[in-house]
């Protein structure tokens, strides 16, 4: 066991997989000599050499197109987007090519796209996006969203070994704020399985990524202050969703709050809400509530950013309202 930060765990996951499997390589803007915009691939170039750590031109379409092509011929590329915001420039390569190739030609596309996501970092509207909903809709893509260093490494390794294109959301806010125990051994976290972070029987709280820790803190505070026990579920994977854990938790509690950093409309929370309405209606003791960012770009000014994004206080408010329903 070693204590490491979230970004160190991401780095460690890639490193181990590249060590283990010669077909794994990284490509992206400044991933080589510079070590990546957030230093996730620092030292990779020196260790693995420039054939496996490739600095690319400033073109996300080129990065993702090249990655998809490499995957088709048996490689396992890890493509880094400097910020998740810029993935839109390579949108077509992902949703029309990578996502559909297996359907059309039965050829696997084992590709990982690293997406440094989200706000809380005063990055403004072009460096704070939560991109998951754009891809959540697309058949053929998997999406993972770790919230702990342990999951960051385990899901990275699982994503690299998966034969489908996997979008790997990594939360810039968590990079150096979150530390945790990470085994040095080889392990994977299964894609499609959520984790119960806190047991509770009053409200089920579903979250992922950057907002899991807020949710956990909020649940702990409310338990102390009002004796309301919320079960906190970290979804970890968005595509596929751990539907059985979701439905089981609804049945156990009867009340649901979904929290995500991505904005509300058309977000992952809406799909979870629909799933619950469809398959757990008879277990509902209150309307399903969602807490998400406001439907606006993420503002640059810190007070405005705070106003727009979910936080612990807002989660407590939502939980309290639900508990009183």
């Amino acid at each position, binding site marked *: 066991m070693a204590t490491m930060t979230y970004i160190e765990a991401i780095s460690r996951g890639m490193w181990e997989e590249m060590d283990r499997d010669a077909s794994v390589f990284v490509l992206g803007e400044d991933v080589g000599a510079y070590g990546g915009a957030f230093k996730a691939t620092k030292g990779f170039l020196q260790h693995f050499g420039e054939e496996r750590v490739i600095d690319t031109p400033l073109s996300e379409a080129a990065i993702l197109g090249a990655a998809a092509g490499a995957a088709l011929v048996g490689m396992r590329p890890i493509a880094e987007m400097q910020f998740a915001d810029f993935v839109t420039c390579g949108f077509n390569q992902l949703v029309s090519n990578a996502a559909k190739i297996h359907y059309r030609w039965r050829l696997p596309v084992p590709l990982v796209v690293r997406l440094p996501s989200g706000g809380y970092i005063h990055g403004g509207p072009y460096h704070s996006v939560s991109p998951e909903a754009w891809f959540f809709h697309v058949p053929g893509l998997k999406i993972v969203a770790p919230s702990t260093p342990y999951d960051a490494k385990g899901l990275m390794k699982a994503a690299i070994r998966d034969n489908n294109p996997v979008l790997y959301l990594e939360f810039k806010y968590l990079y150096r704020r979150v530390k945790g125990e990470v085994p040095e051994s080889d392990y994977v976290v299964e894609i499609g399985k959520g984790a119960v972070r806190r047991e509770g029987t009053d409200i089920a709280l579903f979250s992922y990524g950057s907002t899991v820790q807020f949710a956990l803190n909020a649940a702990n505070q409310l338990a102390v202050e009002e004796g309301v026990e919320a079960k906190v579920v970290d979804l970890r994977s968005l595509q596929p969703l751990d539907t059985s854990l979701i439905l089981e938790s609804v049945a156990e509690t*009867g*009340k649901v709050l979904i929290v995500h950093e991505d904005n509300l409309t058309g977000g992952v929370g809406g799909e979870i809400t629909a799933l619950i309405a469809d398959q757990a*209606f*008879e*277990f*509902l*003791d*209150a309307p399903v509530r969602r807490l998400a960012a406001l439907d606006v770009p993420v503002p640059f000014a810190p007070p405005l950013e705070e106003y727009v994004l979910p936080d612990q206080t807002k989660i407590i408010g939502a939980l309290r309202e639900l508990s*009183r*329903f």
Partner: protein
Amino acid sequence: MANVEIVMPQMGESITEGTILKWHKKVGDQVKKDEVLLEISTDKVDSEIPSPASGLLVQITVEEQKTVPVRAVIGYIETDLSAAAGAEQTSAAPASATVTEAPAVTRVATAAPASEKRVSGRFYSPLVMSIAQAEGISMTELEAVTGTGANERVTKKDILAYLEARKAGASRPVAEPSTTPTRTSTSTLNIGTPVEIPELRKKYPAPAHEVLQMSNVLQKMAQHMVNSVRTSPHVAAVHEVDMTAIVRHRLEHAAQFEKNEGFKLTFTPYIVEAVVKAIKKYPLINSSVEGDMIIRKTYINLGLAVASENGLIVPVIKHAEEKGFVGFARAVNDLAVRTRNRKFSPEDIQGGTFTISNYGVFGTLIGTPIISQPQVAILGTGAITKRVAVLNDAIAIRSMAFFTLSFDHRILDGALGGMFLDTVVKNLENFDTNMKF
């Protein structure tokens, strides 16, 4: 064929529901328009409700002791008697005509299983409904379960607690329509009905403990008080008032006044007059708050808090700004008499813009009253007692009282509160002692 709905009346602007205490008529009884049809209880008042029409009471959809929202249908009167007779005859058979064409028939036809219908309008969550179904709880039974959720909704916890109590052989008193709480006039405060709840009995054994189901009026009082304290940051200012001149004036004129008016002269009209004059000077006292808006009223409806055997009641003197001293005295007496006899109408207890609470009658010297929402201030008047006071730099024995103004610091501050209360005091101390009746 005319089927008239009987609905739960709105007994006040802030009242959202009412409880049926007693049906004076049975299904099948003839009723005349305006004849007393039932008695209801709301958070403010118990009232006799007249029939909305003449005809035959064909259906009662809400039983006694049940609480329903205002405007909910609680029964039907058939005003066309031949149709009513026909409907009764066909009630056992399925309606022959299409349902849309024969509403009266279908309504009467469902009269028997009506107890299975949801009548309160209370929302039940899918979970509560599925638990009820799985545990064989009928809708009637469900309607009687006490809800602790928003708008008294039955939560998962409530129904699980109910199930546990039911399994333990307990039966909530509210589930039993037969245990009508007695509301006879007694000298003691009717705070609630004795009930037997086994799990509470275990904790609080008889005869050392008595368990009472809080009365409707009491429950609502509790709600209103908590709500008011939560809504308004209360500040209390206490001023001392020299009532000597008024005490003397009242003594001198009491006999003549009673001869003229037929009722006793009290201190209340003196205080009411002083307050109304002060409100005219500081009209912001006579406001309410909605969001970030102040609603300032040009009329003054003065509420007078009165203790009754059923709890606190606040009858209101309407348009006090238009009345003079004798007008106040008559209005006060009229309300007092009707409150005592429980003959007041809903209008008598709603629409207040400022309230006076005279807890001095119980000997209280200084109180800090709670504002009656959505008003922003309340005046509490303490007992008038003879005290040593300094008058013109000499020690004198004077009839003194402490008056407290509790006000809402969202819109009123200590300066305005103090100036208003000081004006009330000056109005009383400078009362025109030449006034004759």
